[in-house]
């Protein structure tokens, strides 16, 4: 709320990360004169963009052991995501760091902890570290966790906190849209408007297009959703969410979805849609057995 201080040099970088234009975030990270704090944050944002793009190894290699705590935390996330078989040790060291009073309260570390525990679906552990908030990102993560837990009432409270801090913040707007989608009903229209605002303000990203498309799908407008998703597919032909949503959209339009599905299975075998589909097949067989 404070009147303008110095220009926010990292604004674009953050925005790009939040809105999912990771390559743009990386490309435009070469900023002039940054304070050392800003520089660390800049590096975090850049490495997180790399992680989002799947370049885990690059992050692991580039961050050496002397780097600042936030960067170490980011490295931990890269290790966690790159190595699905050795999660235990990573979680162990994460817990160790969190217990360390010197660094345990670092916002980035807590954020990463939240993300990792979210992947572990251990939401209460995640919330343990993130619920205190402190940065917009932590609040945003809280909203995400609550949405995941189907507790939109809590999510709404968190969102209100964010709105009090900065209602026009990109994250506030995004979380607002996500929550609106989660609660459904007339709020979907609002979510659509928020994504629409983004698309007017910033270059289109897969995330915005997917957001709009999901809104359309929830409003029953699958034709428009398909158009948006194909546009997103043009931008990134391997984006798992685009593919997954295209599968769903095609099904509703009575079109064949197998192409998108097999593409998704190839590129992202771990995607939730793929998992759901395979578990559904199993449960179908089981059900047939039980009914017969």
């Amino acid at each position, binding site marked *: *709320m404070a009147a303008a201080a110095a*220009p926010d040099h990292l*604004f*674009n970088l953050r925005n790009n990360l*939040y809105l*999912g234009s990771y390559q743009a975030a990386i490309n435009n990270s070469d900023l002039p004169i940054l304070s050392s704090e800003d520089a660390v944050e800049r590096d975090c944002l850049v490495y*997180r*963009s790399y*992680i*989002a793009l799947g370049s885990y190894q690059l992050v692991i290699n580039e961050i050496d052991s002397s780097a600042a705590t936030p960067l170490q935390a980011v490295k931990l996330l890269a290790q966690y*995501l790159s190595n699905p078989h050795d999660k235990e040790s990573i979680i162990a060291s994460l817990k160790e760091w969190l217990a360390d009073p010197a660094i345990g309260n670092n916002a980035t570390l807590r954020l990463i902890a939240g993300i990792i525990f*979210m*992947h572990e679906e251990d*939401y209460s552990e995640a*919330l*343990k570290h993130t*619920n205190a908030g402190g940065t917009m*990102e932590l609040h945003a*993560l809280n909203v*995400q966790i609550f949405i*995941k837990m*189907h507790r*939109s009432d*809590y999510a709404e409270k968190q969102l209100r906190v964010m709105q009090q801090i*900065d*209602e*026009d913040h990109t994250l506030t707007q995004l979380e607002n849209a*996500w929550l609106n989608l989660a*609660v*459904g*009903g*007339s*709020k979907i*229209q609002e979510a659509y*408007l928020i994504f629409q605002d983004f698309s*007017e*303000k910033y270059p289109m990203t897969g995330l915005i297009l*997917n957001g709009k498309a*999901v809104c359309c*799908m*929830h*409003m029953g407008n699958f034709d428009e959703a398909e158009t948006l998703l194909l546009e997103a597919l043009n931008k990134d032909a391997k*984006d*798992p*969410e685009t593919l*997954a*949503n295209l*599968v*769903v959209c095609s099904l*509703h339009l*009575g079109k064949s979805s197998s192409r998108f599905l097999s593409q998704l299975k190839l590129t992202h075998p771990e995607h*939730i*849609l793929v998992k*759901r589909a395979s578990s*559904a097949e199993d*449960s*179908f067989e*089981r*059900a047939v057995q039980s*009914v017969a």
Partner: protein
Amino acid sequence: MLTKFETKSNRVKGLSFHSKRPWILASLHSGVIQLWDFRMGTLIDRFDEHDGPVRGVHFHMSQPLFVSGGDDYKIKVWNYKLHRCLFTLLGHLDYIRTVQFHHEHPWIVSASDDQTIRIWNWQSRTCISVLTGHNHYVMCASFHPKEDLVVSASLDQTVRVWDIGSLKKKTSSPVDDILRLSQMNSDLFGGVDVIVKYVLEGHDRGVNWAAFHPTLPLIVSGADDRQVKLWRMNDTKAWEVDTLRGHMNNVSCVMFHPKQDIIISNSEDKSIRVWDGTKRTGLQTFRREHDRFWILAVHPEMNVLAAGHDSGMIVFKLERERPAFAVSGDSLFYAKDRFLRYYDFLTQTESQALTIRRPGSTTLNQSPRTLSYSPTENAVLICSDVDGGSYELYVIPKDNIGRGDNLQEAKKGLGSSAIFVARNRFAVLDKGNNQVLIKNLKNEVVKKSGLPVTTDAIFYAGTGNLLCRSEDRVVIFDLQQRLVLGDLQTPFVRYVVWSNDMETVALLSKHTIVITNKKLVHQCTLHETIRVKSGAWDDNGVFIYTTLNHIKYCLPNGDSGIIRTLDVPIYITKVSGNTVFCLDRDGKNKTIVIDATEFIFKLSLLRKRYDQVMSMIRNSQLCGEAMIAYLQQKGFPEVALHFVKDEKTRFKLALESGNIQIAVASAKEIDDKDHWYRLGVEALRQGNAGIVEYAYQRTKNFERLSFLYLINGNLEKLSKMLKIAEVKNDVMGQFHNALYLGDIQERVKILENAGHLPLAYITASVHGLHDVAERLASQLGNDVPPLPEGKEPSLLMPPAPVTCGGDWPLLRVMKGIFDGGLDSIGRGAVDEEEEEEDAGGDWGEDLDVVDVDGLQNGDVTEILEYGEVAEENEEEGGWDLEDLELPPEVDTPKVSGGARSSIFVAPTPGMPVSQIWIQKSSLAAEHAAAGNFDTAMRLLNRQLGIRNFAPLKSMFLDLHTGSQSYLRAYSSVPVVSLAIERGWSESASPNVRCPPALVFNFSQLDEKLKAGYKATKAGKFTEGLRLFVSILHTIPLIVVESRREVDEVKELIIIAKEYVLGLQMELKRREMKDDPVRQQELAAYFTHCNLQMPHLRLALQNAMVVCSKAKNWATAGNFARRLLETNPTNENQAKAARQVLQAAERNMTDAVQLNYDFRNPFVTCGATYVPIYRGQKDVSCPYCTTRFVPSQEGQLCSVCDLAVVGADASGLLCSPSQIR
């Protein structure tokens, strides 16, 4: 006060506006009368004939005349067109204070210090009346605008109203005037014509001015007692109404505003005051530092006033006339009076949207200044100068547009400008702290942001951006990043107009338009001599703008031009095609159709869209010197060529564009030496020897021609030239040619003939023509010149030409679109039509069922009639819905946390939407969508007796997959899946779960049914069977809304079942080639399936053919009869049927006995394909209702392949409406 124009001069004592033109006369204390154009700000003329101050001046309403009166006792009438004084009226004996033309009669009224008022006839140039009665200087006298009255003010402290009605009667015949002249003297004292009607006493000092109200019986006067008095009169009397106090010194002049209910006065206290005519309170005061005011004038038509003071005059407006408006898409919002109005560009209709102000609070210049509109929120921000700059925020009720009679309490705030910067955010400029406040629609401050430059106004610049204006520059400021995105030095910007795509912006200043891109990178600047008023972008990126008196355009490269002139200023709101939408000063919407040809043409040229250019050239009238000059200047002479008829210009342009053919044609037309010469030069430049030769020939320029032949090596022509020269007796020419040819003998001959014998001799001897030399020597006798000594003579011969004649390789003249294009454009369209291919269906050809060729390609769609299918499905009551076992899945992991953190307790996870779905529903499809296949199957089993779920597997999976969408959220965070719900509407309340959206719906089945029909008709039975079976397989997982649709679904089951059965039999029949009896039977049964008419016909025909082949004439005859009963539309079918029928009638026997009795109604068993006649025992499938012979009980239904024959079932449940 808005000053429009100011002059510096000697004291201004008299002023008069021209009624039509933007002119004003100012008479000065120095004796000069100035004529100004106040719009352009130029002095048009000055008239300097009076001796001493000129106090009164007045334009005539219609004639090019004005009158002036001065301290030289003279009244002068001038013609401003002739720039001179026409005549002078003499008679007053002292200074003349005011003069005025009558609006109708040829009269002038004058007031003078000689205590008289005189009325003159300026046509007869005589004084027709002297009005006496005042006993001090008469300071002012004027006619009533309508009635026969004169009002005068005098230093004798009175205002007098005179009745001049008698004067009018007397002058009804012009002859009277002269007669009356003799009576003048007698009238001078105690005149009988004009009588004083009222004497208004009330001022305690001399009265300087009195004026009538334009319509009401009111008079206003101003006096040295510093008061302005308002008087009312009726037929019999006049009385003082009120006094306006406030001036601090003598009131010089006072008058009513011609249109508004206000009084304007000025005074020697150096102020102009504006008073409310009804409340009689001061509204506004404008002061000058040093100058006393002496005179006022109001324009009869326009909303401008003028005031004269000690050192010049000012022309000013009291109120802005520009209506505030905002354009959004196809709607325009604008403020008119006290309403916000709405105009739709598409329908061109307007309506009231809101009442924006309470009536009665109309003070000056408090009307809305700018509007900003947010389309999504339907909110309007109205800024005005109220309270030194403030805004009001209204939300237009959506349903209320068109009524607009409600008065909404606005959200208000202070700030010199306010605009929307996002859907639900607006920025308010806080000038004092040089910051903007970002507010939400509740008018709460969300954010504050300092501005990078000292800003006095903000404009929209795209979402989240502001365009900040300061005195001499504008910047675009990003509110979130707090960064300056663009910066430009400009003159003081008044208005900002963004293009539709927000890529370009026009910055409108008083006299300039600057066009930049969205980062304020300068593109072009236009300068106007008169004020720029408004503008809008057209769809092609041309900026259309208005000045005070023109509509003009500006192309992206800065070229501009006039589209048309305007009588009154307008404010463009939108340009669409060649229609300009605008608001006029009265707030009325207008549309002006403009001729866009010129600028579209220029734009096409600029964008190199030559095809458009060409079509425009051919289709429109686009000539004129200006256009040609433009084209030449812009480097398109070849284009200009197409416009020009005048040969000389054509020639010039042709040369310029290097088009030699056209130049030749033109040169032929013109046929003068100069043009031929120029043609020759150009042709030579291009190396076009033929044309050069032609040009030289035409100009008879033999020297050049010869030289041309020489360098061309055209010796033959050269020798011709030699002969021509000989004929013409042109010695020099002959010699040249001989030289070029290298023909020495000829040369010698020429020299000899010309009498240059010595030269001839030398030439001959040097070149070794000794015999000739000797002959010449003998002729010369003694005068034989000595040959040069010691020189080695060489033969002067031109080099032999390698090639001869012809043009040089020509410079390629670009054969642009303009040459070829003119002819060929029309053709393109024709070719395309041929591409239309014979789109044929090969669907019919492999139909081996029928021997008769040519199934009709009739439309398949027409045959969708459900009505015939009898409804057999009766609902059975009393489903036991209660006993459905729906085990609530409590498999969510138990939260063990909580204890670990003493402060924070994580909430327990909520219930996933899918679980809510299954709790609410007993529809199998919804359970499947929720992933609860188990319960879904139980439901299907219970409702429809379905046991075989294998065919449903993919549908179950699709339903499940299609029930969730995926939202990538925060980076690197697991994806969020969201349940897609059915039946969304804008008014649905959040957090209330609707049933899942299902991937199968009834309309898809409809499509499938049509496809199935089509396949059947085409004889693609396997395909058809697949489609009908898939319909049967999908229906158990269909959910529809209404009861009626439930019935339709049930009908669909029957239709699909009949076809499945029929097609299965038909396919079976084809497998059994070796069993003709069974074949006939199956074909016969097929005809008893409930089919669409065309299909039935085909089935009948098929059966008929099969039976007749097997010589079963009686049966075949039956089919033929049935076929004919259907009135087949296909003639071949009918013919075949009649033939079979004839054959059958001759031979009413069957060769083989079939298990088929068409007289006895039957259904066919779905598994064994044998007829089950009425009355025989059967069992049926609980789902698709196919009948079976009793032995099939307990088997899987072979038609739907889902349910168990004879199983118990509660019936199809496919709609929530069945449960209610």
